[in-house]
């Protein structure tokens, strides 16, 4: 199928790198920003294992990180928790890890 020749102007495919001299008022200085990054006080809803997940998981990320995840199988949750420990060095002991997986498989599980 042909593309209908509806574009009258030359298409500037190659003119992507332009000299800064062509800018109207080029930026010459930067201002030091000072901002406040919102913190989250959201916690996991209570239930078996909520103490462990609240105690271990909120240091690196807020609870909505997990709450927004899809329903996953217990095996998938085991993999996620193992990755947090192995790759991202979450200092979670084996008992807690098991309870966290149970919590996730119960609240966000998939048969």
């Amino acid at each position, binding site marked *: *199928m*042909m*593309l*209908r020749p*509806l*574009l*009258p*102007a030359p*298409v*500037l*495919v190659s003119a*992507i*790198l*332009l*000299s*800064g*001299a*062509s*800018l*109207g*008022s*080029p*930026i*010459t*200085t*930067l*201002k*030091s*920003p*000072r*901002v*406040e*990054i*919102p*913190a*989250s006080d*959201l916690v996991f809803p209570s239930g078996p294992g909520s103490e462990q997940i609240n105690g271990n998981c909120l*240091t*690196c*990320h*807020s609870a*909505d*990180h997990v*709450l*927004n*995840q*899809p*329903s*996953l199988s217990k095996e*998938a949750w085991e*993999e*996620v928790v193992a990755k947090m420990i192995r*790759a*991202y*060095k*979450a*200092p979670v002991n084996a008992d807690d890890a098991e309870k966290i997986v149970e919590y996730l498989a119960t609240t*966000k599980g*998939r048969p």
Partner: protein
Amino acid sequence: MDRQKFVPHPMTRRNLLRGAGAGSLGLMPVPAWARTMVDFHVPGGPSTRPITTAYPQKGPMVLQRSSPPWLETPFEVFDKGVFTPNDQHYVSWHWATFPSEIDVDAFRLTVRGHVNQTLSLSLNDILRGLPRVELAAVSQCAGASRLYVQPRVAGAQWANGSMSNALWTGVRLRDVLDRAGVKPGARVVRFGGLDEAVMPGAPKFLKSLDLDHARDGEVMIAFAMNGEQLPLLNGFPLKLVVPGWCAVYWIKMLNDIEVLDKPDDNYWTTTGYRMPDTPHGTVKPGQTGYKLVPVTRILPRSFVTNIKSGDTVKAGAPTATRGISFGGDCGVARVDLSIDGGQSWRPARLGDDEGKYGFRQWQTEVTVPSSGPQSIMVRCTNTNNETQPTFPVWNPAGYMFNTIETTHVIAA
């Protein structure tokens, strides 16, 4: 082409560079943003997200994660023009430990490793001491649209808004490397920012590029987007811009460049961000025995931006239909639409080319023949003749989804 036909207030490079200030780039008084939740209508998990205005230097954003922030560009923004306003450019951090204030006088960019001379560049050195370049490019997360993959997978549950286009101003990475003098035997260049891993021993977020790629003259160190300094959450003061490649390479708050004479062995290169080395990165759930390769370039995509699924359109009458597209690591060759489930396609008219790595608008008229449920499919083909697939892209990490989009409408 008269771009006024496309959108009432298009944000073009021309009017941006005329000195549009933060006000005109910022939130417009659109009642649609009075709402506080957005529903993505996906099965298999929570489908709603709050719209937040709580983040500094940011307008209304879809809150995917509070900390470290994952803030998605609300999809309506993409209908307004090809350049995403800075205050709605999406945000993604790996680690929560990054500074909330930066002293521009104290900041230094270090260039070290397999070089003749270690550099410690001030922002003044970068803004005034090196040739400037400017380039439009889409930053898109490797996990964009993960929310829509089926079966669902773990990870950032991005809808379609973890992509943004900006006109970047900065200096060529090549010029910075040349100033340091890359020694013979150098192989890769590794980049790090001011963010730090939270837990001791956890991997600092780093990414690297092969030396040839790093020196291609397009990879740049940006200090401005859309003519203004970067919002802190988008990586102030310096961000690596890797045109055509996934945003994971676009290191924010870039302060460390290390030239290596051996492959990069850090976690984020060797283990993270890997996808199947199969056509379209696609495998079957449970499939094994394929090779994993790093995510690299982005792929062609296109979206309808002025009609949403669930909208009503007139049967038997033309409906103005427009949207955006991008080619990935090259330009957009064509955008086609189908209203018969992909059996036949008709080309859309492309808008101005603001740079091959950027968004490109398209528009056309669509006439759905009869009343009832109808679908509008849109497909981008890039200048390398690569086109979006019809089948659902799927891999266990939900990377590089670029299946043809379908907008489901009701004709009446």
